[in-house]
């Protein structure tokens, strides 16, 4: 049912404009024309009561079942990821010789399988772990998909991968970062993205670098949403901080669906940490920025752990008051003419905005999966599993800032890593590590307002 209830088009119409001017200006009015036209067009379409016909099925396609939150709190991220998956599908299914280095780009379809195309079956788990579990089951038993992919929220990946494991169907995780997903002894799970401990280590190395530059970091605060994602990243950061003798002034778990976060902000203001790390989804990340502003609280540094801070709605909503906020990203658009730039253009043509880190990690996940499918040369689960295990993509074959793609015994990509980025004007710029930085770090984030 849920698949039928999802919106008919990918999101992206209400996203920020992607003008490359980096003057700040009022962020909001740039949304203008495109959105107006779109809303009008949809209202007209609605009035005409047009029903779009379902897509025709390809003959000998490889079916990939994809679980994402296409509605609900994280819908924007899910919709953006869906568009990214469709770009990956386009790259694999059609000839794109202009994308240098990317496996399967220059041919149409999967050559080892007689040019078979990828067919994507999207389902919407709404961010609900038990629904994700049921949908995984349905994809395997009724839609007879060859591989599963997903599932954004770690809690949803947690439940749905267990189903795949039971049925012996490979499950590739594009972006869920909770540490406990791997390490359950699963044989059918493969995760392309860096995970919580990678991020926690990166943060600690970053703090060390900053201290060497004379910045005062006496204590940090960890504010995390309380499902698998936030909890595991929060735990990883707390553990890494302990190992590095970095005091954690306060740890605040909260529910991401809160309509008010002022209590948390007041607690932070009370403890005066030098860095506040937010592990948050979209609406809560926006609310934190607004509430910190209205309660006149500005810590020296705010570090967002991707997710909400990378959501396409974040910058248009609070870009003006969140200047200097840091975030992590494994994605960088790169110079014009680069392969990453061209992939970004494809995504932009589809959605009207740039790839964000979350969607880019999913796009990379799909491409790494397609590479394995081609090498498997068959839709038999065991052959796909074997090909996934043998994956060995080099840095020049991938679009992310990873050192490659290669899975360990638990299915984790051991070559995954991350950059740190900082919001300057209307976009994030890479600022750490220094060798990938395009602009110097601004610390403290805002001048004190008192």
């Amino acid at each position: 049912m849920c698949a039928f209830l999802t919106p008919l088009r990918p999101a992206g119409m209400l996203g920020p404009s992607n003008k490359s001017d980096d003057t700040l200006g009022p962020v909001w009015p740039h949304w203008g024309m495109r959105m107006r036209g779109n809303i009008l067009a949809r209202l007209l379409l609605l009035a005409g009561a047009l029903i779009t016909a379902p897509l025709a099925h390809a003959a000998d396609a490889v079916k990939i079942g994809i679980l994402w939150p296409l509605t609900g709190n994280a819908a924007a991220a899910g919709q953006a990821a869906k568009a990214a998956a469709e770009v990956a599908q386009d790259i694999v299914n059609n000839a794109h010789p202009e994308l240098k280095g990317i496996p399967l780009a220059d041919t149409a379809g999967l050559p080892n399988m007689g040019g078979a195309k990828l067919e994507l079956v999207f389902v919407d788990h709404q961010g609900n772990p038990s629904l994700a579990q049921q949908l995984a089951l349905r994809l395997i038993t009724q839609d007879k998909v060859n591989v599963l992919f997903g599932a954004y929220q770690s809690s949803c990946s947690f439940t749905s991968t267990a189903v795949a494991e039971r049925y012996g169907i490979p499950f590739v995780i594009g972006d869920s970062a909770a540490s406990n997903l791997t390490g359950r002894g699963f044989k059918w799970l493969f995760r392309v993205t860096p995970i919580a401990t990678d991020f926690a280590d990166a943060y600690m190395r970053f703090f060390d670098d900053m201290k060497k530059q004379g910045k005062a970091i006496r204590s940090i605060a960890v504010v995390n949403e309380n499902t698998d994602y936030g909890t595991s990243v929060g735990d990883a950061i707390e553990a890494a901080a302990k190992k590095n003798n970095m005091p954690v002034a306060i740890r605040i778990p909260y529910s991401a669906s809160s309509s008010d976060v002022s209590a948390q902000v007041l607690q932070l203001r009370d403890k005066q940490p030098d860095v506040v790390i937010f592990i948050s989804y979209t609406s809560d990340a926006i609310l934190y920025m607004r509430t910190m502003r209205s309660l006149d609280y500005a810590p020296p540094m705010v570090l967002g752990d991707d997710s909400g801070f990378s959501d396409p709605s974040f910058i248009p909503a609070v870009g003006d008051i969140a200047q200097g906020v840091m975030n992590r990203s494994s994605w960088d658009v790169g110079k014009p003419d680069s392969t990453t730039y061209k992939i970004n253009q494809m995504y932009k043509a589809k959605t009207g905005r740039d790839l964000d880190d979350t969607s880019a990690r999913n796009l990379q996940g799909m491409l790494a999966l397609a590479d394995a499918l081609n090498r498997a040369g068959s839709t038999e689960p065991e052959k796909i599993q074997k090909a996934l295990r043998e994956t060995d993509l080099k840095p020049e074959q991938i679009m992310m800032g990873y050192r490659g793609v290669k899975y360990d015994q638990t299915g984790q990509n051991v070559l995954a890593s991350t950059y740190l980025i900082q919001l300057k004007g209307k976009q994030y710029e890479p600022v750490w590590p220094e060798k990938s930085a395009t602009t110097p770090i601004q610390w403290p984030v805002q001048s004190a307002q008192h």
Partner: protein
Amino acid sequence: MILVQVIVGGLLLGAIYALFSSGLTLIWGMMNFINFAHGEFVMLGMYAAFVMVLWFHAGPLAFIPFAAFALVLVGLLVYFGMIRSVMRGPMLAQILSTFGLALLLRYLAFWIFSANFVSLPPTALRGTIRISGILIDVPQLVGGVTAAALTIAMHLFLTRTRAGSQLLAVAEDRAAAMLMGIRPDRMQALAWAVAAGSAGIAGALIAITYPFSPSIGEVFGLTAFVVVTFGGFGSVPGALIAGLLIGLIQALSAFYLGPVYKDIAVYALFVAVLWVRPQGLMGKA
């Protein structure tokens, strides 16, 4: 000092809760009809304001009345198009009809506006007032004051005007009201118009502060039900007091116990109150 700040924040939030609950208490309490789509009405109010700002760069003085007007139309449309006939059916059909309406409205909004969170641009209503160390968010303050004014206005409308009395009469005994020359159809249409219109105003006011997406109705819809039950079915002042109380308890428990416990505190009290007073704080037994 920080305690005062927490209390002020809680009361302002509570006033917002009361604001979007007042329309529900009218429909639920006065007509014995559960409108599951109330949260979606609030959501539509938000998008009505959003569209006005997007197309005409309207300020709050234009987009708030527009949202009210748009939602009055929606309310009338829903009443004449659906509710009027559904009310002749069994109880279950009444309940499920608005549930279906809620889903219809939510997914229509998904289709038209996409799933992304949007927020209104800075308006004249942005900013913070500082009163002896206590910070008050201007949009929240305006929302709170409007909530109180709206609630009082609605209460006066129901108790002091002819139309209000007629409305209550229809709720009490439809047949008797008809014998008195009251046309129930008109009165109920009026109730839906007022309820939806107030939801529209609420939505427009909340939209100034909160980022929203088509699924926001779920969040506010559920809270509205709790507020109305807590305050007492059909009691407009009860909704105001319950809203303020819930906001206050949430703020205090979130600050002193931790944010994950705030809903436990609220619902524990909720259950306790219903145990002692099943009719709610100010409802009639």
